[in-house]
């Protein structure tokens, strides 16, 4: 079964078409880099895939089910532009909250495990508002992974991360791919993305410019894709 199928998705903001007839599929176990210049429509597409926005036309299927069905979201982990963490709660309370929302068996145990994995166990009872930026980002990574999602949707995941958080996220993504999970990430950091990616989707001004396997040329020269398929 296809992990993710985007079927003729259009999205209008007023009269402006932010996405125009986007079609591609992601098979289980693939890591797909969603690339495009600023304003190309990457975030709009990721919000639709995450069920946070409805397409004007077309459909999105996650593991064969419509993305707007809430139950399918249990299989999706998200890192968006915001960290999605409550400042007035402690690190442990935040992770227990999300473990509870994802109806995990023992939220407390899972939360403790992920605090350990992300190096935050020492400060688990500290309020997030007192955390450094790097610590908050690691907590956001733990929040996205704690329910063992089959599909990870990552919107600019490496932007504004410190070195430790980048290393943590890259390690977790490699583990996830080894375990056969599916990853779709939008990014401007071409080199990091292309090192992990097995496939590439390029969007240019809301239209699909290219979709296919990541090639050796792309890895050797990250600008290649834009020169050949996107705007120069």
């Amino acid at each position, binding site marked *: 079964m296809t992990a993710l199928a985007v079927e003729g998705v259009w999205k209008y903001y007023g009269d402006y078409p932010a996405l125009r007839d986007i079609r591609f599929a992601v098979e289980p176990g693939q890591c797909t880099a969603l690339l495009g210049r600023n304003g190309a429509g990457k975030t709009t597409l990721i*919000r639709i895939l*995450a*069920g*946070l*926005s*409805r397409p004007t036309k077309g459909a999105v299927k996650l593991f064969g089910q419509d993305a*707007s069905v*809430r*139950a*399918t*979201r*249990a299989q*999706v982990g*998200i890192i*968006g*532009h*915001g*960290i*999605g*963490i*409550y*400042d*007035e*709660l402690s690190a442990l*309370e935040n992770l227990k*909250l*999300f473990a*509870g*929302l*994802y*109806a995990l068996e023992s939220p407390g145990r899972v939360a403790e495990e992920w605090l350990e994995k992300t190096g935050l166990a020492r400060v688990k009872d500290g*309020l997030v508002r007192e955390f450094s930026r790097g610590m908050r980002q690691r907590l956001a990574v733990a*929040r996205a992974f704690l329910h063992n999602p089959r599909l990870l949707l990552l919107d600019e995941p490496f932007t504004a991360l410190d070195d430790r958080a980048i290393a943590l996220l890259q390690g977790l993504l490699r583990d996830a791919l080894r375990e056969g999970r599916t990853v779709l990430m939008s990014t401007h950091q071409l080199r990091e993305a292309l090192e992990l990616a097995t496939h590439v989707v390029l969007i240019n001004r809301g239209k699909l410019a290219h979709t296919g396997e990541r090639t050796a040329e792309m890895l050797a020269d990250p600008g290649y894709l834009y020169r050949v398929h996107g705007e120069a």
Partner: protein
Amino acid sequence: MAFIRQMLTVAAKDLRSEVRTKEAINASLSFALVILLLFSFAFDPTSETTREIAGGLLWLAFAFAGVLVLNRSFARELPNDCLDMLNASPVPGAALFLGKALANYVLLLGIELVCLPVFGVFYNVTWYRHLGELVLVLLLATWGVTVVGTVFSALTVNLRLREIMLPMLMYPVLIPCLMAAMRLSTVLIGGEPITGDDVAWLRLLIGFDIIFTSLAVVLIDTVLIG
């Protein structure tokens, strides 16, 4: 069971956040007490007329103060894009809504219970003569205010002028609920039980709660995702 657990998780999270920050409680409680105090200067507490409008004054204070709690309900999800993460989770929109409404309900009831004795002192009324019935009216009317306010809080959360828009949208819808609450509270504070024609006002409150709770549960996904 999962639905109820998720609903209670959302409610507990909101209450814990509010207890930590006290943003809404402090503002709402002090606002309610100030309104009651100012009204007590405007009306003679010993006059019969004041007793006849006591229920109205009480519910005006509750409705004005309540909007401060309801405004924070979804606005507290905006920092760090937390609302997106709630919407991206598998929690049904109805569980998310009812969890938030439950937290708002507890906060509003708490504020009302603190205000009632103060109201009794300022207006020289023995408000507890029909305590059971008065509590019933408080429970029903406060749920009505909470449900309507929570839906509109979700609807206005992304507006820059949400503090103004919420009461403008909410109060007209609340007119039947507030009218019933005012009428019944006036009767009970005046020492009379709910009988005869007043039972119809009680039925109206129950009907209002059922209709608006059902509508909110059905429409909340559209309100949250669009």
